């Protein structure tokens, strides 16, 4: 990696998306936040050039030339100047504060017509529940142009829900509900991150917001949370998608390599030895039990760290995952 | 030029008191430094305990009914007895400092001894209280045992989070008790030094500092007692 390549890469990106260093503006908040960001940035440029420029100028102009002592100015201060450079920054800072406060109120106050989605953070995935429709999803699917209110909680440690393209972020705290809202401008797909450190696979705790136009969204709801023609997809393929999307992949490998939990490769129909000395064959019932009540049968050599997926996966989804495990031989 | 110390140069011809450390110029400077240092340390102590008081206040705001019910399981009579012990010990401590100012070795010695014994009495009462709590399973966190928590011969029923109340009780009184023990250790050392004749009206900043420390330990108890034993 050299600088020239990096700059070239940067320029290339800059030309097609104009976002090589800023995320795109995909919500109503984004524009407001960016405007203030730019204002502060120009102000910073100005003061940086002023301070460092003066510094460089003085260093060049007043550099000691010879070895002998040179006469220097007896200035100890200047009240007028000191007042000026205290008062002007103060005024600018108050302006920035007030502007930020105004925009922030808009981010904090949820509009009345917002649709509600429940969000649960747990190590290391997100679950989105649509309370009215009874849909449980691993991606946040929302209609464009509609305010969305997220009511969020965590089932273990602190997480934080962050969508850079929307400029929104809120901590997800166990034992209490936090709220976040946004209004996506148009259909598209945006990245969701966890930004509060939460352990081993913190950096894999990713998900997507899928913004659909209202017709497609209605279709999605009608299909029970499946995108177009759900029945056409084989169960095992759906299982593989869930494996990746719901965070199974963070702890269970599908190729036999070692992770936090046992690998799924060759799991089906294998003999399982448990920490308490008992053993059983890994059939459908065992797999289902392990997903819903993981602590009931802990495989020897592994820690009891897996959270329960009770209420997070429906029966059909569990079935898909089991079918997927069967294909991993 | 081989003389390493500059004190000879600066204070030549001056009287050099026995207890003046080499880096100070005068006893007044040494005493004032000692006292200022102690006050700063006590400021630090107050902030240390203020963190605990803050935890107490927040827990009490969240679980007012727990605090009301759980304080019944503390024996306010023993608490009051301990308050009397500590208040009296503050008086004897002050008398000991007075003894130093009037150069009375017996007044110093017996008052410090009395303070030490009163502190010991406080710890004995504390021990009795703690052993009751241990016996009744009134312990912090997951050591709390609701099946043993007795009150007036009946099984106590404490709403909310009794484990948090007893955690706060033990952390606050335990930290305070540790301070009492440290104070008693300091007093043993004071007794040795008084016997040796180290203190007089000119040099007793150590005695005074231990006194200041003891008063702050006393003061913290004055806050702890009503907050834990006399909840309304």
């Amino acid at each position, binding site marked *: 990696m050299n600088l020239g390549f990096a700059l070239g890469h940067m320029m290339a990106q800059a030309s097609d998306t104009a976002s090589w*260093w800023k*995320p795109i503006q995909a919500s109503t908040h984004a524009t407001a936040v960016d405007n203030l960001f730019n204002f502060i940035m120009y102000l910073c440029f100005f003061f940086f050039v002023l301070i460092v420029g003066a510094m460089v100028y003085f260093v060049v102009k007043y550099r000691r030339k010879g070895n002998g002592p040179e006469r220097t100015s007896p200035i*100890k201060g200047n009240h007028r100047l000191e007042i000026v450079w*205290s008062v002007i920054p103060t005024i600018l800072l108050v302006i920035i504060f007030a502007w930020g406060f105004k925009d922030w109120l808009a*981010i904090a106050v949820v509009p009345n017509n917002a649709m509600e989605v429940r969000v649960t953070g747990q190590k290391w995935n997100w679950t989105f529940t649509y309370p009215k429709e009874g849909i449980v999803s691993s991606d946040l699917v929302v209609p464009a142009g509609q305010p969305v209110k997220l009511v969020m909680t965590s089932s273990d440690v602190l997480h934080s829900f*962050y969508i850079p393209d929307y400029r929104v972020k809120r901590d997800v705290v166990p034992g209490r509900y936090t709220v976040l809202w946004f209004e996506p401008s148009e259909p598209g797909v945006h990245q969701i991150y966890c930004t509060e450190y939460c352990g081993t696979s913190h950096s894999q705790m990713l998900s997507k917001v899928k913004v659909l136009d209202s017709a497609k969204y209605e279709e999605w709801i009608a299909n029970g949370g499946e995108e177009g023609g759900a029945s056409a997809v084989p169960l095992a393929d759906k299982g593989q998608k869930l494996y990746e999307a719901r965070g199974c992949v963070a702890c269970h490998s599908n190729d036999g390599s070692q992770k936090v939990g046992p690998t799924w490769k060759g799991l089906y129909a294998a003999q399982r030895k448990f920490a308490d000395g008992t053993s059983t064959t890994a059939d459908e019932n065992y797999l289902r039990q392990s997903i819903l009540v993981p602590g009931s049968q802990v495989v020897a050599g592994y820690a009891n760290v897996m959270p329960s997926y009770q209420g997070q996966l429906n029966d059909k989804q569990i079935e898909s995952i089991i079918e997927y495990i069967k294909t991993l031989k | 030029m081989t003389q390493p110390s500059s004190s000879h140069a600066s204070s030549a011809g001056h009287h050099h008191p026995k207890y003046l450390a080499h880096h100070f110029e005068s006893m007044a400077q040494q005493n004032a430094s000692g006292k200022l240092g102690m006050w700063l340390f006590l400021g630090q102590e107050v902030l*240390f305990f203020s963190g605990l008081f803050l935890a107490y206040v927040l827990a009490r705001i969240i679980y007012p009914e727990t605090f009301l019910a759980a304080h019944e399981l503390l024996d306010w009579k023993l608490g009051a007895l301990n308050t009397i012990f500590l208040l009296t010990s503050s008086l004897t401590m002050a008398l000991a400092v007075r003894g130093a100012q009037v150069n009375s070795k017996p007044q110093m010695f017996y008052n410090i001894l009395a303070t030490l014994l009163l502190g010991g009495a406080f710890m004995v009462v504390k021990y009795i209280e703690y052993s009751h709590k241990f016996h009744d399973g009134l312990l912090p*966190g997951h050591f709390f045992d609701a099946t043993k928590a007795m009150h007036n011969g009946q099984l106590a029923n404490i709403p909310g989070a009794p484990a948090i109340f007893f955690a706060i009780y033990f952390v606050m009184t335990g930290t305070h008790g540790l301070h009492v023990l440290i104070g008693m250790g300091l007093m043993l050392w004071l007794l040795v030094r008084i016997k040796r004749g180290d203190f007089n009206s000119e040099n007793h900043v150590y005695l005074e500092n231990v006194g200041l420390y003891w008063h702050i330990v006393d003061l913290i108890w004055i806050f702890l007692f009503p907050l834990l034993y006399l909840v309304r």
Partner: protein
Amino acid sequence: MESNRNNAPQSAHAATAGGAEPNYINAHKGIWSWMTTVDHKRLGLMYLVGVLSFFAVGGIFALLVRTQLLGPIFKGASGKQEWLFSGDTYNKLFTLHGAVMVFLVIIPSIPASLGNFFLPLMLGAKDVAFPKLNLMSFYVYILGGAFLLFSIATGAIDTGWTFYTPYSTTTSASVISAVTGVFILGFSSILTGVNFIVTIHKMRAPGLTWTRLPLFVWAQYATSLIQVLATPVLAITLMLLAIEKTMGVGIFDPKLGGDPVLFQHFFWFYSHPAVYIMILPAFGVISEIITVNSRKQIFGYKAIAMSSVAIAVIGFLVWGHHMFTSGQSELASAVFSFLTFAVAVPTAIKVFSWVATMYGGSIRLNSAMWYGLAFLFLFTIGGLTGLFLGTLSVDIHLHDTYFVVAHFHYVMMGGTMTAFVGALHHWWPKMTGRMLNEFWGKISCFFVFTGFNLTFFSQFLLGTKGMPRRYATYLPEFQTWHQLSTLGSYLLGLGFFITLCYMIQSLISGAKAPRNPWGARSLEWETDSPPIEHNFHVQPVVKHGPYEFPEIDHSMSTGGGH
């Protein structure tokens, strides 16, 4: 003292009569004389060795973290591109980097090492007020460091240096030894603070009034106040955390009825003022370096001295700006944001005053001054980018991204560490009696400066783009900037390695240092290099301010003002 206007007579004096006088290093011999010393200069030197050793340890952790973030560049057994470390290993690495750098390096760096060495010298005192307490706080520091190292040896911690609950109460047991270590280090910090405040109040030489104190002393004073008042709150917080973890108390754990956000309030009540414990001494250093090398009075002495104290006081009231997204009340966030901007004003005053000090001077560009100028450049960026994070709406976007990482590295590393290394160059001749190599000093400064900007400016861009911090892996779109940043960190490491080399060279074969190589006016330069055991041959009496250099031409116009 008044007769010491120029250096030549002193050097001659040092070369002839002073040559026979034992200095603080060779006055007593043997390892035992060092282990039991109560001499503030020896203790300062011992702290310096400790701090620099831990700096190397923390730096190696940092380079490992940056190497991981090159991306999936290694071919694994399965033939796929793989990352260097697993998530767990990476989490331990960044936690240890943070914990070691904050608690063992930056907090004690300037106060405990240079403060201990120079504070009594600058005051014209023979020692700090409580020399035995000073020795004790050194051993407390070592004990705390040992606990932290022990926790590394027994599996290490993966909580981040912030120990946020409930993660920290549910993860590995090493957390207990680590927080015990930090708890103990806190007491070292408190005791040093008490010692310095009393020393400044009670041990000043005759004639050394408050307005004649070098600004380094003022900065140490403000720092010590925070150390004494904020550290106990951290101590009690960590004690509660340890009790919670061992006994399952539940003050912070929501499963047991506690409040996890409460821990954040407790933690930041200490840790935000701790930021000022880290940066205020650097301000003091820069005030010394810029005046001495500009041969001028500092611009606005009182404004700079008072702004240190103002920052210390307001610094206690801004902790909530770490928690804008945490779920604290909206009103609280608004108040904390406003107070945060209030801290920016005294900081801005300082920067303007330092630049104005150079106006009309006769600037000597030695390597200490190079570091001083690098500080001004980097700290200006660090300070200005704080405005983005203090602003409520913009912080929602930037919180817990690489923007924050870049911001505090510009302040802590670009600010404090640059000033610390600059201070080492400035005072090295006094401490060791040897001169440093000026040429290599400038080369290393160049590498540090370039490497630093490459490392951390990239991170501003990463953060703005939405790259979250504490990520062991990342999406491909971030890779270019991450690789640039890693490249910069190697340059930075190289710069510090060069510094280490010529410092060792100086100890072995450096030129003998005169008493006052930079022609400074503060008292530490009035004694031999290195100083004699009891600091001064004769009790100094002060008759002038700390920056009244002989070059100042009082016949020149002052251009208004005073």
